[in-house]
């Protein structure tokens, strides 16, 4: 019988520093067994439990897109008290780890196809949004979505992650990218301003559109009224939630918000769904 607690063996292909603070790294993983690679099928928005033998497991959103064959990417912030993130941040390319998953629903489970998509991200919470954006603009998928707008902000230029991709996306004419920082430095030539303000200035159309927003709670709190002003209904505003988790399959009993489990009923919830749940997250 299939054992949902056994990790799939993976090898770390590369580790990339994403931010000037050196505490956010992207781990590119490859499958050690071809069979596992074939069976691992996921969609943007899903997550996996990363397993480091001797340290344990931690749930992390998948930052790669299913269109990037053969690899999986996870962007992981180091937390001084996080046992697994500490272990990961002390590893090297070539080290072996494990993953379980994919778990949870996906952005696509929330009716985003054949519509315009507004992606709004803040700081390091851009990981599954990177997955989604990469997925949507892929040759095979671009026609399945109407206008694609990405608004991405961080505190400072050094806090922006995925800089290489941001540059590439900026050159494309089939999507609009707005990158902003709260405060620039002497080399910064781009936009300055908070994400909610920039969202208000960009004024993405709400017509047949869905807005997907991930970031610090304060950013989400001030961006939602802007979206409502622009005509986005609560059904068309999506969030991705995080919770302490263990099993990932709705058994261990700790990631619930009301009767919903973030691991299996989420992590993607519409604002309408969240409005019906207790405020315990």
């Amino acid at each position, binding site marked *: 019988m299939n054992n*949902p607690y056994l990790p799939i063996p993976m090898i770390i292909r590369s580790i990339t520093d994403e931010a000037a603070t050196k505490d956010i790294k992207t781990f590119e993983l490859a499958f050690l067994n071809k069979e596992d690679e074939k069976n691992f099928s996921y969609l943007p928005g899903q997550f996996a439990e990363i397993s480091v*033998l001797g340290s*344990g497991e*931690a749930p992390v959103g998948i930052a790669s897109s299913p269109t990037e064959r053969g690899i999986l990417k996870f962007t992981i912030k180091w937390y001084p008290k*996080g046992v697994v993130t500490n272990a990961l941040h002390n590893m090297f390319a070539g080290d072996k780890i494990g993953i379980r998953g994919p778990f949870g629903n996906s952005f696509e489970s929330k009716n985003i196809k054949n519509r315009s998509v507004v992606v709004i991200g803040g700081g390091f919470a851009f990981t599954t949004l990177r997955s989604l954006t990469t997925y949507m603009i892929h040759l095979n998928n671009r026609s399945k979505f109407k206008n694609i707008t990405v608004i991405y902000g961080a505190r400072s230029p050094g806090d922006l992650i995925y800089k290489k991709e941001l540059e590439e996306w900026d050159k494309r004419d089939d999507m609009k990218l707005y990158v902003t920082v709260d405060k620039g430095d002497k080399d910064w030539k781009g936009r300055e301003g908070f994400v909610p303000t920039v969202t208000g200035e960009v004024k993405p159309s709400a017509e047949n559109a869905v807005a997907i927003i991930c970031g610090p709670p304060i950013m989400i709190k001030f961006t939602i009224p802007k979206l409502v002003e622009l005509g986005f209904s609560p059904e068309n505003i999506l969030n991705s939630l995080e919770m302490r988790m263990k099993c990932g*399959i709705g058994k261990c009993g700790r990631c619930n918000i*009301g009767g919903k489990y973030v691991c299996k009923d989420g992590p993607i919830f519409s604002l309408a769904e969240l409005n019906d749940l*207790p405020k315990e997250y």
Partner: protein
Amino acid sequence: MKEKILAKKDLSEFINKLVKEYDVFAPVKKDEGILFSKIDKVDDMCLSYSNTKNSVKEFLLPQSEALFRFVKKENSNEITDIKKKKRRNLLFGVRPCDGKAIAMLDKVFLENIPDSYYKNKRENILVIGMACNEPDQTCFCTSVDGGPFSTEGLDALFVELKEKYLIIPIAKQCGKLFAHLDTASQEDINYAEKLKKNAGKMLKPVFEIEGIKEKLDGMFESPIWETIYQKCTKCGICTYLCPACHCFDVQDETVGEKGCRVRNWDSCMFPKFTLHASGHNPRPTQRERWRQRIMHKFNYLKENTGLYGCVGCGRCVEHCPVNLDIRKVLKDILESK
């Protein structure tokens, strides 16, 4: 299968037969109290018990269970499976409340994505119940949809008559255990029925549970939670002894190079239960944790499985060091405006 009869004097022979084929666990008197433990013969058992101190959930979800083993070597992530137990388990003398808890655990662990460790144990266990002729003071199964003669979650139920047991076979796999026994007479069945009525009378519901789920739907922000938790010392004994509580943690334990990934019972009463690595905790005080305990048992589980996460065994009532009585809490909730 029809009801069967086993004379008390023949119980020893019956148990001896079981022991040959199964690892048999039954109530045993120990220093710590009456515990479900392995027995070899009928004399090991203590049959004058209201209920065991530990619930039988540990036979399906052990307090600490190895998921797999590994050796921490340079650049290796190889793991080895845990060897499965060869002999099947048989639990004898399970009270109907614990049986009902198994029925609820089955819904959580076998439905949607089945939990392979639980499933394997569940498929290799027989659960033989013992009806409660004389419920204890802390019992309240009839208040939470149960009963002292309930058969839910059990494979067979024994009812103690004067000099014999009436056996009610429930699951097919029990058939061969009782095939050789005499069929019960109508007189025996009637007598068991009388005992059932009698036990029911002793256990009048202390509150009307019907509608508690709907009532709790609107009570998340109720001021009632401000008072309920105040005495609580966060010891977690209520959740550890509860036959229905099943929340678990997963941790890696290592000694030198050798390691093991284990799952351990956890408790919503503990502050770390929901603590994020970032330091954020969505349930920062005992108020939210008590609310979670009540909501999980009487609202969320009811919504997700159709069953309550409380079977009225009374262990939490009996063992809480500060006498926090869940019956009183539920009564207060049901009577609140």
